[in-house]
């Protein structure tokens, strides 16, 4: 094997310029693919980092499972099953209801446990208190916008009591109204999300009001993002639906991988040119060395020996092309980063743009480099197959007669 390559490199060294040109051709093709792929990869990494920075990957949102028309509710036993799983810190179940005041002001009610506030750290009190652990009966906390509305429309403030009504539908579909009186225990600062339009009561109280025995949703907090996936699987195994920021990351990954593949594929067209160069050069080489091939056969070389000799040359060309392609590809990706980043940052603007500014928009991974090398090698060998076969099949006598 070593001798085979020694012989092949001897042959190649006789035509340095030609070999240099093919290697360059392949290397540019490989470098283009690496540059484009590293750009896709870099943007993917950046996007994922941004998602990770703004989302809590240790939180999983669970809702009732719907599959083939049947609904799996979050019952107490399911809650327990999730709560007792390894790596689960705590769960925060909630129920959603709608109440109306006597003046027909609609209230979106969340029945929550104290853990809910640990999940949503942005629920800060402006004044008053949260209801205590056990849920002081009759206490309610108002979201920022709700509090404003109630104070304007109904002149209600902290410490005031007011009656609400909930309409339930029994089994026969006959409506049944229940009323209760709540005291405003606290008012929240603006959170800037849907919580501003919600009111919060103790979960037990809410479930007594609506007479439900299942939760509308729940949040699961795990101790480490690494275990989020396994907990998710467990939740889904119970027949429930789970969402987490990982879904967004998965989507981004899927999208970027697809985009990168498409871009890589089209930049890979330049590789076809490189491959054709190899085919062309090797065919010329076979023509030039026809006599030598005939001679080798007369001296005892088999078809396979001849084929190996030509393929060994292709392997060397491919390997050198791969190495130079990788080096050139790293250069390309640096170039894209330096030249392309300011452009991309200004084009995207805003949060996305400034997010990109800190890091590099290209990422050359060992995997990309290995793929670049492998592509070059495989391409050269495949391109060499036809010329090598042609050489191997030459009739020794005809070949020897060639001038």
């Amino acid at each position, binding site marked *: 094997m070593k001798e085979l390559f020694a012989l092949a490199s001897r042959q190649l060294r006789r035509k340095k310029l030609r070999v240099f040109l093919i290697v360059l051709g392949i290397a540019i093709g490989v470098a283009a693919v690496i540059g484009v792929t590293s750009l896709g990869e870099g943007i993917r990494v950046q996007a994922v980092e941004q998602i990770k920075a703004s989302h809590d990957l240790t939180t999983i949102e669970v809702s009732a499972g719907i599959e083939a028309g049947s609904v799996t509710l979050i019952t107490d036993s399911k809650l327990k099953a999730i709560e007792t799983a390894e790596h689960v810190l705590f769960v925060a179940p909630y129920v959603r209801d709608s109440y109306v005041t006597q003046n027909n002001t609609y209230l979106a009610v969340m029945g929550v446990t104290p853990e809910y506030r640990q999940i949503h750290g942005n629920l800060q009190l402006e004044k008053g208190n949260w209801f205590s652990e056990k849920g002081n009966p009759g206490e309610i906390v108002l979201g920022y916008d709700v509090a404003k509305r109630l104070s304007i429309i109904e002149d209600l403030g902290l410490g005031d009591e007011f009656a609400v009504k909930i309409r339930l539908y029994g089994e026969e579909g006959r409506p049944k109204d229940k009323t209760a009186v709540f005291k405003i225990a606290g008012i929240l600062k603006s959170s800037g999300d849907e919580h501003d339009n919600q009111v919060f009561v103790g979960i037990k109280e809410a479930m007594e009001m609506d007479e439900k025995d299942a939760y509308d949703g729940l949040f699961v907090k795990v101790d480490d993002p690494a275990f989020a996936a396994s907990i998710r699987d467990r939740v889904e195994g119970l027949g429930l639906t789970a969402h987490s920021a990982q879904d967004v990351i998965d989507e981004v990954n899927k999208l970027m991988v697809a985009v990168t593949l498409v871009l890589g594929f089209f930049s890979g067209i330049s590789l076809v040119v490189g491959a054709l160069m190899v085919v062309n050069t090797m065919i010329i080489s076979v023509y030039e060395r026809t006599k030598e091939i005939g001679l080798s056969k007369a001296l005892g070389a088999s*078809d396979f020996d001849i084929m190996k000799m030509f393929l060994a040359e292709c392997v060397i060309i491919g390997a050198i092309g791969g190495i130079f392609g990788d080096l050139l590809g790293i250069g390309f990706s640096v170039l894209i980063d330096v030249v392309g980043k300011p452009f991309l940052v200004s084009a995207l603007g805003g949060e996305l743009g400034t997010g990109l500014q800190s890091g590099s928009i290209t990422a050359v991974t060992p995997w990309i480099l290995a793929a670049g090398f492998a592509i070059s090698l495989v391409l050269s060998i495949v391109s060499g197959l036809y010329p090598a076969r042609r050489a191997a099949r030459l009739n020794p006598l005809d070949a020897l007669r060639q001038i």
Partner: protein
Amino acid sequence: MTVETRDLTKYYWMGKEKVVALDRVTLKMEEGEFISVVGPSGSGKSTLLNIIGCLDAPTKGEVYLAGWKVDYRNKQSLVRLRRNFLGFVFQTFNLIPALNAVENVEYPMYFNKGGRSKSERRESAMKLLAMVGLEKRANHLPSELSGGELQRIAIARALANDPKLILADEPTGNLDSRTGKSILSLLKRLNEEEGKNIIMVTHDLESAKKMSRVIRILDGRIMSNEK
């Protein structure tokens, strides 16, 4: 090694015209013999050599090498015969330009290592070079050597795998007469001292007569076969 041909016939088609290169050639060569095949251009002497050398296949007839019938349809067996039993010397030397003298001699051993290590192969190549008197030129490229030297190296190369039969196609055709004579005496020496069977195609009837049995060929037929 004995060589025998029976009714060896070879046609070529030049367009629609049938060319008879060999016409029922039957000959026998004993162990250790030196045969010269003499004839004008186009008489079929090279064709005979190529068929015996397993480079070309006959249209009809058979060839027996050491008593074994050559199967011209079996490519692998032809490769094995060329590797193990045959050595070629050409009019145009045909050394590989990329390789130096000793590497050229070593080249056929690469296809027929026979358990020899690289250094062992190099050693026997050097011995063969010494035998043809060119050990000092071992590291020279073909482009740096004279015609006579190139043909000596080619003969050393023909001996690389210790063949039983050497086939030489006008080995002196591209050399001046003095150099040609030294090549012929080298071949004669190989025949006498090493016991190699040699079949040589040549134009030089006078030299051929002095050293070997001469077979004259004309229009693909053996005209005379004299000891």
